[in-house]
């Protein structure tokens, strides 16, 4: 089976200005990442603020072009943003963001916004009927469709955004923090909806979130990002049951939960990572409870540590394991 989406060693830098004299500084937001998404599969992306998750999501949709590496969709190179070829592809790849109110036009009834992509992409047919079907697919009534965004609850608005994203019957859906702004009770509705729609339509999905608990529910595979790189990637079950990278272990152990925890709590010390001042060697070493001298100078490569499980840590490399014995 060929991958639906293939990110091959992609990187993206931004120029930022810092300080009084506007020193230009290059921030490598995404720093050499390779990932694939198969049809019908959900890939979860987790990581701290500023680790490059959203940047990765935008490159996956061709909204931004990587400075290095390349993206292929369905086996063909991703066309550049804005070109006719990209626009033609756009109906097959859609996006859902965190803030539904910002994504909607407050002056239009939501049904009109839901069918908008059909018009944009010149898709023929009974748009009204398609709109009503889309509404009911996300659990909303025809009456909801006539309302304006501010007349709906946060969860209902997010469902409108999802309905709009799905109306062109896309094959890839990138969700960037789609439930982060919602209360748990409403969040559960939207998470269930995404799981159901994904299964029913065989969508390939990239699900970006800083909330591990939500990612656990929805993703089959998970990549953990730290300062622009993937530090661990594995099947969700393995990653959450037995996280290997020290950062992933801290992350998993820190997820708040009312129940008993299986993994001993690791409280990190030190500062959150700053993308503008990437530490030398392994970027996690200043906060890492088990760092070796080598970690300060040498960046570990992402390598296979078990079938379907990769991590970037000197302590996890096969050589280190042999030495430890």
């Amino acid at each position: 089976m060929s991958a639906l989406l293939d990110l091959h060693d992609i990187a993206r830098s931004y120029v930022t200005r810092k300080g009084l004299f506007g020193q230009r500084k290059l921030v490598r937001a995404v720093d050499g990442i390779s990932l694939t998404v198969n049809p019908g599969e959900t890939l979860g992306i987790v990581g701290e603020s500023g680790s490059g998750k959203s940047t990765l999501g935008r490159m996956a949709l061709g909204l931004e072009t990587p400075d290095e590496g390349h993206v292929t969709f369905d086996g063909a190179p991703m066309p550049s943003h804005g070109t006719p070829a990209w626009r033609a592809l756009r109906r097959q790849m859609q996006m859902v963001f965190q803030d539904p109110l910002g994504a909607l036009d407050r002056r239009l009834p939501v049904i009109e916004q839901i069918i908008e992509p059909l018009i944009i992409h010149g898709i023929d047919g009974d748009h009204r009927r398609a709109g009503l079907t889309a509404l009911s697919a996300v659990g909303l009534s025809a009456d909801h469709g006539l309302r304006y965004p501010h007349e709906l609850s946060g969860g209902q608005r997010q469902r409108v955004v999802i309905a709009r994203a799905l109306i062109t019957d896309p094959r890839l859906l990138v969700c960037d923090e789609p439930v982060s702004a919602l209360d748990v009770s409403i969040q559960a509705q939207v998470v269930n909806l995404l799981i159901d729609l994904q299964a029913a339509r065989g969508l390939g999905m990239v699900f970006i979130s800083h909330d591990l608990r939500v990612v656990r529910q929805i993703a089959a595979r998970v990549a953990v990002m730290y300062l622009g790189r993937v530090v661990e990637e594995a099947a969700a079950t393995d990653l959450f049951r037995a996280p290997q990278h020290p950062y992933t272990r801290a992350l998993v152990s820190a997820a708040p939960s009312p129940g008993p925890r299986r993994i001993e709590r690791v409280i990190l010390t030190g500062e959150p990572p700053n993308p503008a001042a990437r530490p030398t060697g392994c970027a996690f070493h200043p906060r890492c409870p088990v760092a070796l001298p080598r970690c300060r100078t040498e960046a570990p490569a992402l390598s296979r540590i078990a079938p379907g499980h990769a991590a970037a840590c000197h302590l996890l490399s096969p050589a280190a394991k042999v030495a430890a014995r």
Partner: protein
Amino acid sequence: MKAPLVRIKGLNVAFDGAPAVRGVDLAVHPGEALGLVGESGSGKSVTWLAALRLLPGKAAVQGRVTLDGRDLLSLPTPEMERIRGGRIGIIFQDPSSALNPVLTIRRQISEVLALHRGLSGSAIRAEAKRLLDLVGMPDAEGRLNSYPHEMSGGQNQRVMIAMALAGQPDLLVADEPTTALDVTIQAQILDLLQLIRREMGMALVLISHDLGVVAENCDRVAVMYAGRIVESGPAAALFDAPRHPYARGLIDALPTLEDTRRLAAIPGVVPDPRDMPRGCAFGPRCAHAGPECLLDSPPLRAVAPGRRLACARPDLDLTPARPTPAPHLAEVTS
């Protein structure tokens, strides 16, 4: 039981006639950590803003709030100002409103120290640095000369905690103190709060919409819905066996890392304060509602030692939702 440090009794708050808090009773005992949970808009912040007299004039506030038996709502303003930031420290929900962007961290902490501890000169300098060290700020001395915008979200959060602790409070009210922060930083800060609480023997009110955070950091929990407390009790017991259908609903809706059971969503949305349903405010969303639920808003009553419940059907069997195996296209009502 010891006398409570702070007691809130029959607190009502309305904005332009719309009720935001409807008869809240709550006690905080010395040294305890009390969690307050509930959906957005349930009145968690307004309860404590009203208790500390921080609401705008248009808010109609009724009820009694006592600190060691003294009524705060009728206290002269200057005395109230000494209590705020003094015996009661506050970390606000909106961090940007709490720190002044044009003043250095040193200035902001010094003002609190001068006002509430009567310190001056070198004593202030030393204490400001000690406070930043206490909250785990690296390079505390250097950071004192920084402005809020020069620091990360986590660092500003630490400064706010340091300022709230500057008056050596007996109670710290922390309103969503870590919501905007990354998980690992959140864990770091909550850990720190616990440590300081134990060292200083301080009581903590932790307001959060995250049940996991409250469960892990509090001795006791109160669950709010539509301006009322619907259930309260020891954290472990309440999360283990909630008695109110809303509390049960919140727990079942929470995803966990342990498994991938289907999340149980609570249908519907919180009621509009201007258009409260008859009887129990949760009634329209409650799977267990009966005719008796339409009659009156049920009062909060003791149902077991340390546990209180506001439900017209207090003896419901609320065994946890069973996992739904096969995914299906659910018709979500709301």
